[in-house]
């Protein structure tokens, strides 16, 4: 079953590999990111970063959508990570079955607005997130299981 979905531009890193994975008892991490899915070197580095005893898949949005029903019915505790808002919107609008999405880290960039300590959204990212909200999926900002959860107000 799917335990959580998160957008995190750092993908599989300390907070994800240790803290969230442990908190969720995740046994499989699925990274959905078009760029990484086509970058063999980055796939290798993510495999190095994956937590011990946890499986890892890296899919493009289209490849993930082809497998969406299968992903939903896996026996694993699945933690889905998107690298950016666009790929998250691509997957969630194509498979609109999710109650909530965690915004972990979204990098500061030219023209972006601060929504949280590590969450900055440019207008095009706000647009992508609105598409996700329109599917009935609630958006919230939370760094760690032990830190506060703030609903995202766009």
């Amino acid at each position, binding site marked *: 079953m799917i335990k959580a979905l998160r957008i995190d531009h750092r993908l599989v890193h*300390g907070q994800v590999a*240790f803290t969230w994975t442990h908190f969720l008892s995740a046994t499989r991490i699925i990274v959905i990111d078009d760029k990484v899915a086509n970058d063999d070197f980055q*796939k*290798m580095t993510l*495999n190095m970063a994956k937590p011990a005893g946890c499986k*890892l898949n890296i899919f493009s949005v289209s490849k993930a959508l082809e497998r969406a029903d299968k992903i939903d019915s*896996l026996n694993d505790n699945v933690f889905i990570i998107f690298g950016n808002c666009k790929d998250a919107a691509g997957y969630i609008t194509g498979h609109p079955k999710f109650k909530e999405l965690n915004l972990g880290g979204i990098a500061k960039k030219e023209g972006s607005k601060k929504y949280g300590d590590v969450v900055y959204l440019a207008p095009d990212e706000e647009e992508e997130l609105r598409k996700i909200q329109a599917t009935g999926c609630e958006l919230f900002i939370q760094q760690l299981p032990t830190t506060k959860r703030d609903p995202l107000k766009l």
Partner: protein
Amino acid sequence: MKERKIVIATHGTLAEGFRSALKIIATDEGVETYCCYTTPDFNLEKTIQTIMDAYDEETQELYVFTDLYGGSVNNGFVNALKNHQFHLITNTTLGVLIDFILTNPNQDEIETKLNSNDFKAVYCNTALVNIEGIEEDL
């Protein structure tokens, strides 16, 4: 069950550095830090005595993490093992601390983990080349 108490003691401000990193990645709740030899009048024996005076062996279980096997901070705590019942772990890495805080292991589990490859320093250049088992599909 006894209350678990975590002390990190290091040369210089590494202990505060560990705390800063723990705060970002996991949590630093309940972690006490001691940055040794950062002032000219620092006294290790006194510092350890203060920690032991505040430690109630009846109700608490103390885990001390130090930075360096053979270093004076660890040597000081090794001496304290003579008169006090507590757990002492050295050559501490951030991974060891995060794992300890998140998984709350018992004594056997700690030993097994510390003896495993999970927390050793890694030469990434070779590790990257040797990566196996990339799953292309579910």
